[in-house]
């Protein structure tokens, strides 16, 4: 269906598409353990318990994208899919106000005009929404960032409604993961999805069969519980935690590039203006 759109693309549209999609390199280098990232078609997973800065990081990335180039942004469009009514518009506006050199209602509205929001209330609705997005991606060549917050929101509901078969319980999320992978590759997007840390960390790292082990670092606080299709699709996993020891509230993120198995750590703080790396 969309091949018709692509064939009819004009020269300016083509340039806009290529230009827009090449500027993701400056998005936030601190999030990537790999030198070459982010590339289009990359899939990032933000993982961690509540209150560890995942949502703030999403606002940081969103602000970075929708701010105009004159204010240090990338001037590209973002689609934010909210699955648990978590998105706080007023907080995003506060972050934007702090980052604009001259903040005015006009400027804010201009930035927000580059943001699209979709609210999904079930995994089936998420799947159907993803199917219907092709038109949006075709019509908005400067839409480069797709955020899903969070992918694990329907986990318990799906598990209870799938009967006894784990495959049936996971089937909708599996289809969502596969579709996300296809959309991201086809339309050259960057996907950032958050998954909540719903399971307790295995008390003995050696026992947990799915806790990931990394060279010289002990076990990261990550227990895989979502479907295998998603585990395979993720290229970078960023694990958020909090430095409880220090007086000032510092947050820690560990970025793990799965293919090359490389790690990178960063600390950041959350201020009124959003995320600030230390």
């Amino acid at each position: 269906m969309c091949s018709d759109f692509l064939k009819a693309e004009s020269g300016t549209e083509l340039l806009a598409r290529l230009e827009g999609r090449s500027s993701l390199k400056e998005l936030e280098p601190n999030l990537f353990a790999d030198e070459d990232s982010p590339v289009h078609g990359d899939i990032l997973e933000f993982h961690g318990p509540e209150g560890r800065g995942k949502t703030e990081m999403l606002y940081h990335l969103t602000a970075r994208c929708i701010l105009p180039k004159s204010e240090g942004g990338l001037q590209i469009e973002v689609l934010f899919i909210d699955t648990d009514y978590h998105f706080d518009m007023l907080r995003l506006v506060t972050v934007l106000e702090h980052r604009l050199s001259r903040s005015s209602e006009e400027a804010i509205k201009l930035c927000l005009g580059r943001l699209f929001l979709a609210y999904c209330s079930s995994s089936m609705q998420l799947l159907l929404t993803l199917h219907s997005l092709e038109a949006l991606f075709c019509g908005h060549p400067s839409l480069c960032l797709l955020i899903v917050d969070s992918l694990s929101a329907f986990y318990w509901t799906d598990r209870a409604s799938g009967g006894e078969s784990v495959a049936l319980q996971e089937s909708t999320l599996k289809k969502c993961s596969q579709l996300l992978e296809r959309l991201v590759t086809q339309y050259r997007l960057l996907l950032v999805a958050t998954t909540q840390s719903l399971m307790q960390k295995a008390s003995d790292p050696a026992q947990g069969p799915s806790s990931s082990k990394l060279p010289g670092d002990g076990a990261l606080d990550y227990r895989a519980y979502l479907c295998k299709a998603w585990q395979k699709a993720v290229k970078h996993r960023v694990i958020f935690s909090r430095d409880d020891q220090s007086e000032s509230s510092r947050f820690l993120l560990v970025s793990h590039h799965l293919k090359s198995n490389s790690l990178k750590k960063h600390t950041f703080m959350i201020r009124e203006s959003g995320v600030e790396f230390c």
Partner: protein
Amino acid sequence: MGLLRAGLCPGLTEEIVQLLKGRRIKTVADLAAANLEEVAQKCSLSYKALVALRRVLLAQFSAFPLNGADLYEELKTSTAILSTGIGSLDKLLDAGLYTGEVTEIAGGPGSGKTQVCLCVAANVAHSLQQNVLYVDSNGGMTASRLLQLLQARTQDEEKQAGALRRIQVAHAFDIFRMLDMLQDLRGAMAQQATASSGAVKVVIVDSVTAVVAPLLGGQQREGLALMMQLARELKILARDLGVAVVVTNHLTRDRDGRRFKPALGRSWSFVPSTRILLDVLEGAGTLGSSQRTVCLTKSPRQPTGLQEVIDIGTLGTEKQSPELPAEQT
């Protein structure tokens, strides 16, 4: 959801449903993922008709992306901040309870959760003149205490009666009753005209632990699914109907048995956007002291760790912030 049947959308006849079933396309998702050219060939149906059908069904069942600027305009006019009536608590909450959000009050037994809820109800009903729904699930709500709080605010019996009329109390001792109640409220509010004077502005659920805790534990997945359904109902109420939702939660011991944490586990911890912890003031002396500490442990706009002291014995009589109508951001 989304099983294909005749009449689901214009153009979907029984004949088409049967033909699609023959190609193992039974749901809307199957149709969305199918290769329509192939299906049109094999079923001898019009390709154009199938594409149109798919478009209509997707439009019906998927979420439509909204523009951020439009959403912001809407939120600016519909969000309100409601003062709790307790000055130091308002400071922690950044002026008060925000509509569109779920705020959790966690604390051990006797920490004052119900007292704070009653004070909020009294303040919203009397000073802010807005309607309140108080859902009581553990029998801690007493009308006499509510009257006491109102009497401390005004001597005028007419005003006291007026405020009491604005507070609707409902009892729900199990989760199904609570879910029904919230769905009924949603239905009733959706039918009323916008900005009608009868609209509920605050919904207090005291406590959510009482109805959810019995469902958790063991290997049952249904319990967690029901809890998440309740969470969703509360959030939809807050977001779509512009209500400030307040829930109370108990505390349980940490895994290593040393510290206390809010009950209901990790999955619930993601639900409220703001959480305050009530605790008895350390070294407060004799039993029965009414001093409590309030600590902000989760907030979308304030740094966590802020702490204040309140006196639950004098909640009704302390120096109040002056009577304000509901503030608009």
